[in-house]
């Protein structure tokens, strides 16, 4: 302690400083644009690139986690199996696409509609806005369990309600025909609040002048919506659609909890198939090939949407 305040030490250190660190400082100064992002780049490389490259490498191998043998190089066999002979890949691909298109269309359309209602001034608006957000706040797994109970064909409340108004009950998630619409219902219920929130933010930032002049020119509500709101909201909607597309492509929790991909494989999405292949079948080589395909799909969808956002109408 005392040495810090002693004049000898201070006298020795202070004059030495500029000359000793001058080289380093100048070097840092010159390479600042590399040094500042370096930690982030290294973290990204370790967390993203390394696993991705390793997955791609594994996808060229046959490897069961429970086997005493290590990975065996099979080149593109896994991919050939996957695209040409696998009876579960294409159905899972189809289910994923249908589910995604359905989920995005429903949540974005309804979200925009709800945002339109909530942007208006009415008594209790704050309360209504809070209530609308509730499904998104609840834990998806817990909500999926609740929905599953409600959808039970024998003892569920949904069929009870349907029957009490004279309609036939549905099998809901217990039939290959109604499983996807039922899952879409849950997905829409759960995630429409998110798109509504995004749209609400978008609507709040719209300029008021074009709308006023349109109204003065006598445009109908529909014309205003179609020719003004929609074009103005374009980039907001694309952002909402982008988020929802990525979420819906990798949907897992509600499907796993409610159907485990069933009945049969009628609601098996790609993500679920990857899970079964890796964690149930311990077939890590094949699962890696599936992940590579899946990753490409998500990347492609994202790039497509970003392109849509940038391109002029």
């Amino acid at each position, binding site marked *: 302690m005392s040495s810090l305040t002693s004049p000898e030490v201070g006298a020795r250190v202070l004059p030495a400083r500029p000359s000793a660190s001058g080289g380093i400082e100048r070097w840092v100064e010159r390479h600042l644009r590399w040094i500042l992002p370096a930690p982030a780049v290294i973290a990204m490389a370790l967390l993203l690139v390394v696993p991705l490259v390793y997955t791609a490498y594994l996808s060229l191998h046959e490897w069961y986690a*429970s086997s005493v043998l290590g990975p065996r190089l099979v080149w593109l066999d896994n991919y050939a199996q996957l695209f040409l002979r696998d009876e579960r890949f294409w159905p899972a691909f189809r289910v994923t696409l249908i589910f995604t298109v359905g989920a995005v269309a429903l949540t974005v359309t309804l979200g925009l509609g709800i945002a339109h209602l909530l942007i208006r001034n009415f008594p209790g608006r704050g309360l209504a806005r809070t209530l609308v957000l509730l499904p998104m706040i609840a834990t998806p797994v817990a909500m999926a369990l609740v929905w599953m109970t409600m959808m039970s*064909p024998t003892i569920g409340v949904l069929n009870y309600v349907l029957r009490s108004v004279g309609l036939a009950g549905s099998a809901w998630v217990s039939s*290959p025909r109604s499983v996807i619409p039922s899952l879409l219902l849950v997905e829409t219920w759960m995630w429409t609040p998110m798109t509504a929130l995004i749209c609400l933010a978008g609507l709040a930032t719209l300029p008021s002048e074009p709308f006023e002049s349109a109204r003065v020119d006598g445009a109908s509500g529909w014309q205003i919506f179609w020719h003004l709101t929609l074009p103005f909201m374009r980039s907001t909607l694309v952002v909402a659609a982008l988020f929802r597309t990525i979420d819906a492509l990798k949907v897992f929790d509600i499907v796993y909890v409610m159907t485990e991909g*069933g*009945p*049969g494989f009628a609601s098996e999405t790609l993500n679920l198939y990857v899970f079964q292949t890796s964690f*149930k*079948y311990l077939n890590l080589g094949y699962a890696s090939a599936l992940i590579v395909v899946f990753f490409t799909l998500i990347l492609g969808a994202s790039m497509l949407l970003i392109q849509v956002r940038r391109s002029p109408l």
Partner: protein
Amino acid sequence: MATWTRRIALGGMATVLVAFLGWSVSGPPPVGAQAGFDWKRYSGKQLRFLVNSHDWTNEIIRPAIPEFEQLTGIKVAWEIFPEDQFRQKLAVEMVSGSGSVDGFMSLTSWDGLRFLKAGWYEPIQKYLSNPAVTSPQFAFDDFFPNTRQIATVGGQLIGVPLYPEVQLLYYRKDVFKAKNVAVPQTMEEWEAAAKKLTDKSNNFYGYVSRGKRSAAVYTLAPFIFNFGGQWLDKDNQPLLNSPAAVKGLETYGRMLREYGPPGVVNVHTYEVVDLMSQGRVAMASDSSNWVSSFENPTKSKVAGLLGYARIPRGPGGSHTPLISWAISISAQSKNKEAAWYFLQWATSRDMVLRQAKAKIPVARKSAWESPEFQSGLPKEWLSAFQATLPDSYPNQANPVVVAVPETRDAIGAAIVAVIEGQDAKDAAERAQKSVAEIIKKTQ
């Protein structure tokens, strides 16, 4: 086989004498303690077991471990995990080859061949036939012969069976009486009874069993066996498109479709128990283990109303799978003899008797026949189980292959398809093709 049984018999006789003398001076000995066998031989060793969560692991063995440690001087770490996590944890530890696991449990019908192929099991016959490390009191021939087969994988004895289960027909005595229906003895009578008892307008169904993809394979099994079919032929090739298997699949699918509750393709064993306990169905076929749930009045509306019977017979007789978890020694263990001591102790007469007192089904004849086990369980359940046991097929809950989860998913898809009304022959052919491919790739 004969030599070691004789040795055990001779040793047993000698021990009985010595033990009797010992008893007369010092009172009853603690569990497992007998004169003439050196339980302290591996004193100071440490063991680590990875086990699946079950009443047996949690309530019978865990609290008794201090007794084992006192008896042998061996320290035991008893690590319990739920089934899925248990398998993942075990796989990671065994693949790493660290040798830190000395023993583990496995469901041989599910894990057996995979674990055997991976080289994780230490065959136990050589310990069993070595009187230096096996207590004369152990008496392996006290286990029902069929249950010893459960622990035999690829021709090798790989462990000791713990709590066996077969399948039984559960039925509502009151409903049968009211509708004047007799307990079905044949497959035809079974289906006729299911038809007669179904009353859809009142939301009441004649029969339920599992319809959910992978789970349903287990309850389909007796239908295939009873029509004279098998899962695999001698060369381990699937027989799913055989006429008997197609007939079994067709009957099972039709009964669930016509007389089962709506949404049966999403029914797992838990839903079977719920539907029965809630009084929604007249009959169910599933694991024999559910008796305590059904007879528990706080969980079940039908406690006291249930009857228990063998699965009705077909042209091939009446056969159900017989399955059980088993406890094994890890081939990577550095303390195999000490681990064998633990296995012997955990499945000794005395410990199995404790298990029987807790109404957990037992594989030992002596414990099964004990008054503690026989009292308190329905007489009909006991006799139905005992009648089923000799004709049951050890481990045949599914084709016994390396890749059981994939195989069960492939067969399960066929079951769902048939329940949904597709042609059984087509579905069976598809399953046959998929399973043959899976076997080809993994074996």
